[in-house]
């Protein structure tokens, strides 16, 4: 399978790999996917005054899954929580030129950021 240059770049030089402290009230954690399906993403955000100050990820999955989550952490830094929540998988797929068979990787990345935001909001007593 031929990967786009951007996928290869994110795979070889992933941005923001790591973990944030789950116990921190400002940190939201989203874990999506399943080992049996071949991909699991953990995406974390650290929010200060409604703005995402930091984002980290760890991904078990193919190169496109790693690239999708890496890209999302790069994008959401500096965004408001609302902006981050409006990221669409199609934007990720387009940016990385994902082939049809890999679209699910971008869907998973969208799910991951939404799950992280939800976790943050639940922790902070906000529900939308």
């Amino acid at each position, binding site marked *: 399978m031929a990967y786009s240059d951007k996928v290869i770049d994110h795979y070889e030089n992933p941005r923001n790999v790591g973990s944030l402290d789950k116990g921190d009230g400002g940190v939201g954690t989203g874990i999506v*996917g399943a*080992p*049996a399906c*071949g991909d699991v993403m953990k995406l974390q955000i650290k929010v200060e005054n409604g703005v995402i100050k930091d984002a980290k990820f*760890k991904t*078990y999955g193919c190169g496109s899954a790693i690239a999708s989550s890496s890209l999302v952490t790069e994008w959401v830094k500096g965004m408001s929580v609302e902006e981050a929540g409006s990221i669409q998988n199609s934007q990720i797929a387009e940016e990385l030129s994902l082939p049809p068979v890999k679209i699910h990787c971008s869907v998973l990345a969208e799910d991951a950021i939404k799950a992280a935001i939800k976790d943050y909001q639940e922790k902070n007593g906000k529900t939308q």
Partner: protein
Amino acid sequence: MSVKTPVYLDYAATCPVDQRVVDKMLPFFTKAYGNAASRTHPFGWEAEEAVEAAREQVAKTIGADPKELTFTSGATESNNLAIKGVAEYLSEKGNHVITANTEHKAVLDTCKYLERRGVEVTYLEVDKAGLITPQQVADAITDKTVLVTVMHGNNETGVVMPIAEIGKVCREHKVLFHTDATQTFGKVPIDVEAMNIDLLSMSAHKIYGPKGIGGLYVRRRKPRVRLAAQIHGGGHERGNRSGTLAVPNIVGFGEAARIAREQMAEESAATAQLRDYMHEQLSSTIDHVILNGHPEHLLPGHLNLSFAYIEGESLLMALKDVALSSGSACTSASLEPSYVLRAMGLDDELAHSSLRMTIGRLTTKAEIDFVVELLRTHVARLREMSPLWEMVQDGIDLNSIQWAHH
């Protein structure tokens, strides 16, 4: 020591053609180009003579009579001819076929085709090591069974089935026995008499011969096996397979078989030594490396490993200087991992984490060292990036988590 990249570790998929084979084939393209069926002139006689010499070399490799060998386009066609040919020819005698659930698709899809035509097929389930037992075969045989087809060596794992014992059971029950020997022909000793094999599929390109040529052994006596032809025409190959013989390919197949047979003991020992070295180097320095397959009933060149907590395709991406294959099917539309590994009871997660490395005639120790080093580096790197690895390090049981399947 530097190695030339990409390193080829996919010999179970195909092999380069041995130079001795190429040299033997070349005259039959431009000089001795006759049709082996032309009986009226020297061009035909020369071609026929070369075909018969090759037939003898191939037959000798499995202890068969040359008259028992039908040339085909490859092992897929041989499997089709054996299974459909027997089922069709014996359709009045019975309508039951027995096979195993880790067979190659050329066997499984042929069986599925027969099922749509009213044939009953029993798919025996392999154990954790990928083996079926002769007893399973005996228990599945009914008075309607016309054929048992069980592969010799598995293409994904290299697991070698107890075909001599299965052949014995079939003979006792007077049921025909076919084996797909694509991965084992020319690599491990095969004797169709001692092993009670009635039909055997083989391929040239897995033993450094050309692609597009293979053979089917069809027993001629005790018992005489008869087939319904699947390709009709001029009645070539004793009516089993019509079509002008691919003389250069057949010549190449014969030479490849001769070389494989003469070098077999030496070559399989050297290959197995290199494979064992690689396995040892990897499992002694990387945690959670699982061998998929049986540790002893294994082909010399196969090494199928799962690197837990890493998805196979992401590892393949890191190994871009190495040609190998993965049991992860992330590249396919189905997203289903290897059916062979699943049939062996492997968790989907471990099936997704598997790599198949197959070593061959030209593999060097320097190449193995190069690949081992790459694997050490990238398994560590990808595990650092893996949320599963993190959870395991934190003492979390992955099976205790409610995963959201998608």
